[in-house]
């Protein structure tokens, strides 16, 4: 490249160009310099402060002699004990309660009866009056004897009713009479009326009558 005379001319021109006087304006330069130094001081201070702290943390403990280390330990232990004692003094009542609660043996709790409330209102006793209910047992009557029985039963029942009425209804309800072997609740066990005998069929009733 530099062998070419034209190129060399360009390079010569460029080297002349570099000698221009476009200098940094003095006021701008001074202002920029001041800012730069300010920042340098800040950065330097921050770095030194950081380094100092680091040294204090790292080197401070390492520089202690064994005796000083022991003393430091003792001082720390004493400080901890003092702090705990102070705290215990301030909270002694709470601690006392806590210890009592934990040391006493657990006892069975006494059950107290619930309090009886006596009211001034008169006590009214309520008695339940049973209502008498008569139950009729329907019975199919086809025989004479049965009807007599029923009639006698009904008469007796009527007497009973009368007597009940005369007593004012204060008597206890009469229990249902015994079914006499036929309570009527069993299907197929009711007494069948006796079948008419052949002899009765054979009796001829005179038409003329």
């Amino acid at each position, binding site marked *: *490249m530099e062998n*070419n005379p*034209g*190129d060399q*001319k*360009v*390079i010569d*021109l*460029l*080297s*002349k*160009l*570099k*000698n*221009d*006087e*476009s*200098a*940094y*304006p003095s006021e*701008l*330069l001074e202002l*920029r*310099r001041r*800012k*730069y*130094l300010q*920042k*340098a*001081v800040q*950065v*330097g201070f*921050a*770095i*030194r402060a950081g380094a100092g702290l680091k040294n204090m943390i790292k080197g401070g403990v390492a520089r202690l002699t064994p005796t000083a280390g022991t003393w430091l330990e003792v001082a720390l232990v004493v400080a901890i004990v003092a702090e705990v004692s102070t705290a215990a003094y301030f909270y002694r009542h709470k601690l006392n309660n806590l210890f009592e609660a934990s040391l006493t043996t657990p006892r069975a709790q006494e059950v107290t009866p619930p309090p009886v409330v006596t009211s001034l209102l008169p006590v009214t006793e309520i008695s339940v009056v049973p209502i008498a209910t008569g139950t009729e047992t329907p019975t199919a009557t086809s025989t004479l004897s049965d009807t007599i029985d029923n009639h006698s039963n009904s008469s007796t029942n009527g007497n009973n009713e009368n007597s009940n009425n005369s007593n004012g209804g204060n008597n206890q309800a009469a229990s249902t009479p015994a079914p006499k072997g036929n309570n009527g609740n069993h299907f197929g066990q009711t007494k069948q009326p006796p079948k008419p005998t052949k002899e009765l069929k054979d009796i001829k009733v005179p038409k003329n009558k």
Partner: protein
Amino acid sequence: MKEGVALLKAAQKLDEEALTAIFDQFAPAIYKYTLRLCHDPIVADNIVGDVFAQLLEQFAAGKGPRTNLRSYLYQTAYHLVVDRSRDSQHNAPLEVAVGIYEKGQFTPTQTQIEERVMMEALITAMNTELTEDQRHVVILRFLEDFSLKETAEIIGKEVNNIKVIQNRGIAKLRKVLGMQLGESW
């Protein structure tokens, strides 16, 4: 005053004197380089501030340059300029560099007039004809006097790649100047 590696080591320990010396030594050059790229004194000043702020942060974090502080500062400035130009799509002209020729109060000779015309043509060609990479490489190599290796480090490319970019840039400038200035090219 400390110099070189000693200055760098002292700066890494955030020594105020060393940090001040670094600023005084490199801030004007970084400003000039940035101004060539972005053509705005305020932006150039801000980029200088950012460059040195990043340097402080790197030192504080235990990082930063170990050997070539100058390359490191230019590299940081280059990245900041590129980031800003990407953000604003700002085409950085080099008109500020002509200042020396505009300030002259004396009556220019014929040679000086010819030279000024060539300079203006060169600056225009650099601004309009070169790619961004070519412009950066040409500025770093011929205006800031960085070596190929340093330029490669700053831009983040291989040395061979820088060589190619540089050759193409110079060739393009020669061609443009030849077309503008005639037979002497």
